[in-house]
């Protein structure tokens, strides 16, 4: 299983920009919002947590179709499904690789982009923490969506539609955590809820995703 993770990471690096492109999209969304909303730092700093979270979410979303599509096309997925590792493990590793190439860089880049959006200093720590806790859930849910649409010709937009509603709880708790930190309130409740969503997602969705893949491979 570790073999699968390292392979996917090597592939992401060799593909040139496995790490870079998701990050670039995050950057671009964060830059476009001020162009739309205007440069006033008072407004920007209020909406910064929400925009960063929505941006992270969209960046995750755009890289989802890489998760299974290539393995499906070149036949690796068939072979993995008949390999001695459980398909649930394959799914979990795929989600992990997606997180390392997308969620992790996004999390690390968030403070820099926070600067651009005039995120108040109190918010940096919790922005980082909430993304670190929440992005694994985004990857896992996305992997589930990718599993549902594997093998469809133009699954991209359809997958977005399926996945985005599932992202709502993560988004709400994540952004709420940062906003509370900014208002000087206690962040325990939303942060715990966020962690709960992530844990539950990572515990249960691999089974659903593996089932979806089995059905799609038939």
């Amino acid at each position, binding site marked *: 299983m570790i073999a699968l993770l390292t392979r996917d990471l090597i592939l992401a690096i060799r593909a*040139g*920009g496995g790490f*870079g*492109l998701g990050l*670039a999209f995050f*950057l*671009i969304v964060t*830059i476009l919002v*001020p*162009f739309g909303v*205007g*440069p006033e*730092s008072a407004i920007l700093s209020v909406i910064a947590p929400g925009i960063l979270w929505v941006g992270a979410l969209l960046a995750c979303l755009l890289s989802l179709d890489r998760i299974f599509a290539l393995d499906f096309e070149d036949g690796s997925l068939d072979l993995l499904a008949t390999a001695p590792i459980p398909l649930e493990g394959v799914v979990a590793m795929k989600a992990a690789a997606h997180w390392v190439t997308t969620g992790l860089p996004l999390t690390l880049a968030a403070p820099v982009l926070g*600067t*651009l959006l*005039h995120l108040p200093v109190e918010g940096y720590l919790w922005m980082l923490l909430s993304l670190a806790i929440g992005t694994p859930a985004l990857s896992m849910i996305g992997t589930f969506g990718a599993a549902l649409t594997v093998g469809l010709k133009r699954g991209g937009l359809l997958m977005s539609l399926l996945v985005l509603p599932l992202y709502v709880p993560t988004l709400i708790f994540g952004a709420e955590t940062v906003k509370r930190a900014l208002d000087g309130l206690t962040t325990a409740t939303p942060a715990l809820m966020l962690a709960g969503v992530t844990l539950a997602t990572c515990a249960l969705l691999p089974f659903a995703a593996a089932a979806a893949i089995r059905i799609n491979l038939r």
Partner: protein
Amino acid sequence: MASIWQYANPVKFMQTSAKVLPALSVLTAVTLIVGLVWGFFFTPDDYKQGSTVKIMFIHVPAALMAINAWLMMLVASLIWLVRRHHVSALAARAAAPIGITMTLIALFTGAIWGQPMWGTYWAWDPRLTSFLVLFLFYLGYMALWAAIENPDAAADLTSVLCMVGSVFALLSRYAVNFWNQGLHQGASVSLDKEEHVNDVFFYPLLLCMIGFVLLFVLLVLLRTRTEIRTRRLKTLMARERMT
């Protein structure tokens, strides 16, 4: 006298650049080190900006080169499209990573400068914003080069992107100006005056600017040589596969 286009032949280019490189490296190193050391150690603090004025010696040359690198890429792209000299396409490709590094240096030093001067690391000032957009253009340009297998097609497509991108970069500059009148202008004007008043800052700055230009030329030559070799390597390997 022979046409300058003879240097667009890879063989000629490799020979000439090999001769130029050693002397150029020494000259660059000397200019840059003298300029930076002079600027950093032997200039007084500004009465208003304190010691932060020392940031100017890297910020301004980097900003200059960031823009000029793109201009050079634009010219090289046009030469490629019109005369189809491979070296110019490869030189454009070689310049992009240098340009993006210069852009990043200008952005980072500017941001660090902004904190004491304007009280914020980042403001959506038109000049800063258009630099951010320039950064994105560099990113897209490099990503496109990396994504395309066929080298000639990649050269053509990136050249088209460079031209269209230049137009849109200018347009963005106007749009951004319209959208927000910023802080940077004032700061630069006040310093412009000082530059004329005070040679203490001007000469080291000039030296640094020359140093950055030399560094750019040096790196472009070096990287173009690498690109030419890469290109040859790829061709040879493709041949090997065929036979």
